[in-house]
């Protein structure tokens, strides 16, 4: 990813069109990416993140005519991977997800995909306040909070129960920070344990609503952390095969420029289709898996919405982005077992904002052992992730940008050395991704890794009330992000699209 997020430079071949992807960020288009596409579909899905893929699959399976258009050459959105010389494969967002993904994959994909989901063997925390291995289950966290942190068991149980009971439709105005302070006053160490994994998982902070925290916490910090055995490439390959089997027509390297809206004489707005690569494709419904704000402002355009709605969308805050360092162990060398997922920090106390610090002291390591890809040669890699702010990276000139990336790589390797002495000698590929990289690959504004803050969910769900047949399915509102959140939101959206297409068919019947 390193070399690819810079401004694409033409290489002399005037008439060759490039698109993003590949090791240098561009690949020549050798054929028309829309070759074979029909002029009209029941539904066009824009974007192939897990939200878009799942919506497309559920609706294709239900018998609708679906086209899926993705601007990148790979499908999967942030659920992605890349390969490098030396036989390296790096996964971007395979650190882990809740067990609920198994059921979601069984219902909206296949039993076979669900069966490849396996629990991680190890999750570890290491920071100045505490250091231990955890099963990442309600039972184990409760025991830790009692035995290590000295809390009363009843208080911990009450916390878990209260969060389980939180009602999305009846939210309070409490923030996550207030909730944690009310339940465990003055215990920054406890707040760290209960918040740090959630902040990493969805970019939320102590200032975000308690309700979004409660929902994610109850799903996530209760039954362990899971992964997809076979790697992200295998998952997406299986999903593609399933889409095709369900009659979904999938097209990569197709950037959608516009969602076309038509207005009836009565002033009713409805989607007519999309424009991509200079072509119009008609559709009765459009599902956008692009960021919700991109959908409103860029793909549709503010002029097609009520001014009140545009004002509401204008208040939606984007979530933060990420930095990653990918470290590949040379072929033939082995990493000793450390753990699968390590939350590490040298910061004495916890604030959720500090996880975004430019050159901060906190990061997560995902250690990938041969079990990640049991089908291939035994390989090892380590991916370090931090949350990050676009503003810290956006304005750097090339020299400063390269220097900042080098520093991040060096700091990360030094930190890793503390867990695997001599690791530097085992690694033969190091590469850095920044918010600029994520923006480049996904077209997401400010490289947002997890969509928007809570208020974005309402804007996303109200799109069809504004414009008939316009839907959004993708990371939004904190709770609908991550692999599980995005996939489930795709299925929720599919149900709405199905109802819409059904009602159109009834009218015309």
């Amino acid at each position, binding site marked *: 990813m390193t070399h690819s997020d810079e401004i694409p430079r033409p290489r002399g071949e005037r008439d060759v069109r490039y698109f993003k992807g590949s090791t240098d960020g561009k690949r020549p288009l050798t054929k028309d990416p829309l070759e074979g596409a029909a002029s009209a579909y029941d539904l066009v899905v824009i974007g192939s993140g897990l939200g878009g893929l799942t919506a497309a699959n*559920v609706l294709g399976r*239900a*018998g609708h005519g679906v086209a899926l258009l993705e601007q990148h050459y790979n499908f999967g959105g942030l659920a992605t991977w890349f390969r490098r010389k030396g036989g390296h494969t790096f996964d971007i967002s395979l650190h882990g997800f809740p067990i609920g993904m198994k059921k*979601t994959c069984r*219902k909206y994909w296949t039993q076979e995909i669900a069966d490849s989901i396996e629990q991680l063997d190890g999750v570890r925390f290491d920071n100045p306040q505490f250091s231990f291995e955890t099963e990442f289950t309600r039972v184990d966290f409760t025991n830790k909070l009692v035995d290590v942190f000295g809390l009363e068991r009843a208080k911990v149980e009450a916390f878990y129960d209260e969060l389980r009971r939180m009602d999305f439709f009846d939210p309070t105005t409490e923030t996550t920070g207030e909730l944690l302070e009310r339940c465990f006053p003055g215990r920054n160490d406890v707040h760290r344990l209960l918040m740090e994994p959630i902040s990493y998982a969805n970019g939320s902070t102590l200032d975000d609503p308690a309700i979004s925290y409660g929902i994610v916490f109850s799903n996530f910090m209760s039954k362990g952390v899971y992964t997809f055995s076979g790697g992200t490439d295998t998952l997406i390959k299986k999903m593609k095969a399933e889409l095709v089997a369900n009659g979904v027509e999938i097209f990569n390297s197709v950037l959608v420029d516009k969602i076309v809206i038509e207005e009836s004489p009565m002033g009713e707005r409805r989607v007519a289709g999309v424009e991509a690569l200079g072509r119009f494709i008609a559709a009765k419904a459009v599902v956008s898996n692009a960021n919700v704000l991109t959908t409103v402002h860029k793909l549709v355009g503010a002029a097609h919405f009520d001014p009140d709605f545009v004002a509401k969308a204008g208040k939606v805050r984007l979530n933060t982005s990420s930095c990653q360092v990918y470290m590949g162990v040379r072929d033939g060398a082995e990493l000793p077992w450390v753990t699968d997922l390590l939350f590490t920090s040298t910061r004495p106390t916890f604030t959720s904002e500090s996880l975004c610090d430019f050159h901060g002291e906190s990061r997560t390591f995902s250690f990938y052992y041969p079990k990640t890809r049991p089908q291939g040669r035994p390989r090892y890699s380590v991916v370090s992730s931090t949350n990050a702010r676009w503003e810290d990276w956006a304005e750097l000139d090339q020299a400063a940008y390269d220097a900042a990336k080098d520093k991040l790589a060096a700091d990360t390797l030094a930190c890793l050395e503390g867990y695997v002495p001599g690791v530097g000698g085992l690694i033969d590929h190091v590469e850095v991704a920044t918010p600029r990289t994520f923006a480049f690959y996904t077209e997401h504004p400010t490289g947002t890794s997890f969509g928007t803050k809570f208020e974005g969910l309402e804007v996303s769900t109200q799109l069809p009330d504004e414009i008939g047949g316009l839907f959004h399915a993708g990371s939004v509102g904190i709770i609908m992000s991550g692999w599980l959140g995005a996939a*489930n939101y795709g*299925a*929720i959206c*599919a*149900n709405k699209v*199905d*109802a819409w297409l*059904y*009602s159109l068919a009834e009218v015309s019947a």
Partner: protein
Amino acid sequence: MTPEEVVVAIKDIIQTIAPDEEVDGLDMNERLRDQIELDSMDFLDIVMELRKLYGVQVPEEDYKELGTLQGCVDYLGPKLADKELHCASRA
């Protein structure tokens, strides 16, 4: 469909969505969620199956009517009266 067939239809849909659950002994009046593992996503799937199999639209504000089997019979009975029972899980 008779009210008895509505129950068969619903149990059949539940079976496709939650194959590990035992649907035969379900009580008519107890909440479905309290008897078997069904979450809000599963209810969406039930609604989608009803539309697909029987052309019945259940608007979001009526989802709560489907909380018990008896509720399903009361709410869906009239909508399904002139429909034939298909069994998805046995199809």
